[in-house]
């Protein structure tokens, strides 16, 4: 046990022998996966390779059937995304999961609104929400939409900015991005890459799930390839090329 803890100490999060079944289907089989603090990981693989299932386990949306999860060396069991959030792990879904009619500030603070007391009654501190959401957006170098406009009036890139601000603005250690470049203009993709680099500098680890290898080679330190619910291989980005990764995706481990 102490041996395992020592080994896990430099890891932000470590998954050991994770398996997950959906009825008779084995979605994940004995997966070992770890992330260092401030590391950017590209997670690739075919459809149904188990990428999303693995990420949902890390973000608390699913519970594994077998295996353990360690955060900074301590074993954790969580039962909801909110719970994983308390450990500094959040996920940005492909659809951003924003509330279209609520404004930017409310979306960023949804679920953790600052309140003030008025004769014993609690009310939303809208001023604080507005100011702090501006700070968070600016801190990430994101173009600032007015915090009072409903998110449905923003462009795709701006909506993503709100989702990133919400996921990383509050003691975040690891953020998972599901297909972050889907539906973005080339301009917005450049912006996103800059934001990911900024997160890395702030020592926030990022996992990017993407079909586009170019995105991963631009930003990631390490690539992890999945196939049939197992890790087919992992490479440091500097030591590999698109051809090798493609081969891993298609053929799996030799």
């Amino acid at each position, binding site marked *: 046990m102490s041996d395992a803890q020592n080994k896990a100490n430099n890891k932000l999060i470590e998954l050991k022998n994770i398996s997950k079944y959906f009825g008779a289907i084995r979605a994940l089989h004995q997966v070992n996966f770890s992330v260092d603090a401030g590391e950017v990981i590209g997670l690739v693989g075919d459809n149904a390779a188990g990428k999303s299932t693995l990420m949902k386990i890390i973000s608390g949306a699913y519970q594994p059937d077998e295996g353990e999860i360690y955060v900074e060396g301590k074993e954790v069991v969580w039962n909801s995304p909110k719970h994983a959030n308390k450990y500094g792990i959040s996920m940005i879904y492909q659809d951003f*999961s924003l*509330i*279209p009619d*609520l404004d930017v500030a409310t979306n960023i603070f*949804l679920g953790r609104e600052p309140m003030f007391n008025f004769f014993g009654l*609690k009310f939303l501190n809208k001023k604080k929400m507005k100011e702090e959401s501006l700070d968070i957006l600016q801190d990430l170098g994101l173009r600032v*939409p007015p915090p009072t406009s409903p998110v449905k009036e923003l462009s795709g890139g701006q909506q993503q900015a709100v989702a990133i601000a919400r996921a990383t603005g509050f003691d975040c250690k690891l953020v998972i991005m599901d297909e972050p470049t889907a539906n973005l*203009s080339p301009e*917005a993709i450049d912006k996103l890459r800059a934001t990911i680099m900024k997160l890395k500098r702030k020592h926030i680890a990022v996992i990017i799930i993407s079909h586009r290898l170019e995105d991963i080679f631009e930003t990631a330190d390490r690539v992890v390839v999945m196939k049939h619910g197992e890790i087919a291989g992992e490479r440091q980005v500097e030591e590999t090329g698109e051809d090798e990764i493609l081969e891993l995706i298609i053929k799996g481990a030799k």
Partner: protein
Amino acid sequence: MSETGEKVMEKTSFSEAEQILSTKNKLIILSAKYGIVVAFILLFISMSFLSNFFLTRHNIFNVMTQTAPILIVGLGMTFILGCGEIDLSVGSAIALSSAVIGTMLAAGYSFWVVCLALIVLGLLIGSINAFFTIKGVPSFIVTLGMLTLLRGAAFVYTDGYSVRIQNEIVRFIGRGRIFGIIPFPALVSIILAVIAFVFISFTRTGIYVLAVGGNEDGARKQGISTHKTKAFVFILTSILAMLAGLIVTGRLGTGTPNAGQMFELDVITAVVLGGTSLFGGYATILGTAVGALFVGFVRNGLNLMGVSPFWVEVFIGAILIFAVYFNTKVSVRLKEMIRLAEMKGGA
């Protein structure tokens, strides 16, 4: 056109875009957004010219009194629609409320015991609506079933008879005037509307209602209990329906299972006319208040002009369709057109 618009938007930050809107265009956007308020003001002005009796204190208070139950239940319905659900059972809930008030008072129970019974009944009806909705039955179906069930229960409970109300407090709630001037039901509805406005804009539960209605899955991922939120809106609305039942019963002077026929449709008309989305995510209490009064004053104005009551219903139906068309199509397009025009001009 929309493609170039996208590019312009990418280059101009939104706050700049808001600033470069001219005052004139801001006014157009505002009047499009608050179309029902503008329509209401226009109606008010033209009616006061068309009828000498329209702009009298007596007439206005009268309409506000008649509108009060619709507004009170409309506040709850605003929350329910904002949450992405619907409650068709409110009219029958009023019937049951009225039946219980009449029968219990006649049996010698005091007013306060009746109040307690109404609260329990409201809790029960709201909980049943919420329970099946949470279990996955569409709220349209659950509350449609309850519409029939509660009306039937009201008839069973009273054997179909109406009971005259002697209780002074109940009569005051329906007909009384504060300082001999302000009708009590109107005052209650205004106070509740103010509370509802503060609640939906400045409390956690208020924005959670809209979050669940706007994106249920997204709200859940942020740790919001969608079940609790839905239970809240249904129970709130049923309890407000009990109160509306009290007012209606007091005004009529009888407790009757016939109370509140088609009431749910009046309420939904008022709320939707006010601009609250039928599909959840957006709700406006101010809109509901204006929507309720609008319907009330259209009825009243047409009556004063001697228009046949049959035609009045035709008008109100047509207004509803037109208002929703305006809100969903015209107003949105107008807003977009102006914004794009301004950005091109200003950039």
